[in-house]
């Protein structure tokens, strides 16, 4: 199947899944009342559609696309197929920052959370970049990420132990990952951010392709290494930070999406990987949210991160088995 057909098919699947989310739910909507929402007459239909279902679909699309792209950027930059925002501690950095503002009662507004989360992910990413230049081999970097995750997780646990019950409950739900906490405003804001970040990343596709050939060769082909690094850091931090602030530390989307894309299309140039990663990420997120809702058969489903881990972990294991890791 050619690239355009794959894109169209994926778009159609996203549209179909999004529609199924919008049309179904625990409340039956009287569709005739929907239009009244615009005339400031609060109806159940309007509230459920515009304040529950629509934001949830929008944030799922934004989170899937954004985390997928940030995972792809990190895998490319570190020449490491197992890199990703949650693997290397970037999500934990964001989570730690959100824990700090939420559990100490300093923040709680989504903008404050998003800002804190972005700063948190930049700090973690800065740390990872700082040590990455000192590591040889792919495993060291991953183990560093694992340790960073432990460390930040421990700090969050300490914060939790000290926190008030109310703030704690809010934080625990957030920590399981959810698309259900976004408002229409936050979901739209994150979606716009993801679209902007994706198009900035897309403009770098040639530099990213050259970068895969190794730093020295890339430099000889005109890649400005420090500029490219700055762009990737800012984008990855913004994406992982803002999405984590709204959805919690979402697992596996960043790591697994690029690999799924590479199973679907034979192309490896970033001019195709970037758009397809955004689309497949969105599709995966919408699919996982069906699991959260009980796959359409049960009234209540599983936490988001449980669903994503069950989808993502086998995929990553399969990729590991396919790849001759010793050569890299």
């Amino acid at each position: 199947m050619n690239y355009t057909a794959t894109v169209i098919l994926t778009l159609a699947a996203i549209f179909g899944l999004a529609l199924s989310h919008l049309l179904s739910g625990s409340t039956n909507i009287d569709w005739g009342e929907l239009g009244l929402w615009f005339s400031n007459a609060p109806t159940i239909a309007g509230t459920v559609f515009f304040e529950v279902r629509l934001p949830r679909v929008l944030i799922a699309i934004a989170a899937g696309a954004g985390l997928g792209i940030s995972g792809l950027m990190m895998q490319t930059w570190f020449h490491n197929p197992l890199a990703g925002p949650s693997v290397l501690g970037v999500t934990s950095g964001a989570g730690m920052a959100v824990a700090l503002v939420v559990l100490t009662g300093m923040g709680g507004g989504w903008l404050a959370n998003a800002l804190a989360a972005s700063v948190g992910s930049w700090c973690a990413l800065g740390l990872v970049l700082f040590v990455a230049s000192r590591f040889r081999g792919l495993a060291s970097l991953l183990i560093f990420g694992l340790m960073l995750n432990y460390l930040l997780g421990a700090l969050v646990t300490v914060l939790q132990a000290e926190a008030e019950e109310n703030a704690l409950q809010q934080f625990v739900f957030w920590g399981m990952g959810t698309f259900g906490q976004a408002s229409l405003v936050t979901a739209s804001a994150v979606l716009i951010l993801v679209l902007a970040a994706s198009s900035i990343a897309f403009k770098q596709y040639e530099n990213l392709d050259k970068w895969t050939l190794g730093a020295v060769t890339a430099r000889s082909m005109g890649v400005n290494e420090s500029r490219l690094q700055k762009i990737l850091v800012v984008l990855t931090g913004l994406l992982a930070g803002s999405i984590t602030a709204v959805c919690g530390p979402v697992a596996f989307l960043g790591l697994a999406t690029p690999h799924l894309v590479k199973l679907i299309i034979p192309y490896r140039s970033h001019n195709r990987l970037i758009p397809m990663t955004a689309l497949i990420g969105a599709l995966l997120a919408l699919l996982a949210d069906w699991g959260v809702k009980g796959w359409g058969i049960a009234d209540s489903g599983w936490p988001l991160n449980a669903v994503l881990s069950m989808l993502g972990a086998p995929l990553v294991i399969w990729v590991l088995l396919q790849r001759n890791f010793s050569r890299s």
Partner: protein
Amino acid sequence: MKREGTNGNEHVIRAANLTVGYSGYPRVLSQIDFQWEGAGIHLIIGENGSGKSTLIRTLAGLQKQRGGTVFWGNEDVSQISSTRRTAKMAFVQSLPPRQSELTVSEALALSGRKEENISQWLHTFDLLDMTTKSLCDLSDGLGQRVMLVRAILQDTPWILLDEPTAFLDVKSRQVMWAQLSALVSKGKRVMVSSHDYHLLEGNLDLRSVTAIQENRLHALNPAGTCADWNAHI
């Protein structure tokens, strides 16, 4: 676009009081005053660890020197923008890209050349069957051939090659030297660090031979024999 001078001077590579090496490590080569000019193959020879790679990377402007200056023509390399540098110099690393998942055709499309031009070179280096394969799935030798083609497609006055033959089989080495000879006969300048120079003996295109011995550069007679050169490294 900037007009290039006609005296050919802008293609001289000149090291002025140059010290190369990595900070924190013993200096590799110091106070080099040397220049390489003219179409042809410029060979750099020396033992393992003598600093060939460091020297050639520094001359290419891809590694920061520890002292002195590298000039391309009259310009300090560190002052040349990356875009202009790519128009002047192509570079092939000694290691093939083992981590890149780009397919051969995607990697070569980065050159911006026309497809028929690319296929021609793929044919020359016997790579036509490989176009849809990822670079990381190729053997080192095949990967290195792709990187050679990539550098040639960059179509620059200078091509700098760091141990390009290390992973190549005998046939590919012959193809490579033959193609480089063909390029220099069209006026290209090729600088190559290599142990594999016996294939070049008596080659008319050999413009200069530089030996690295005891942290110094020595200009050898390019018309000499391998045995003469070997005595100097």
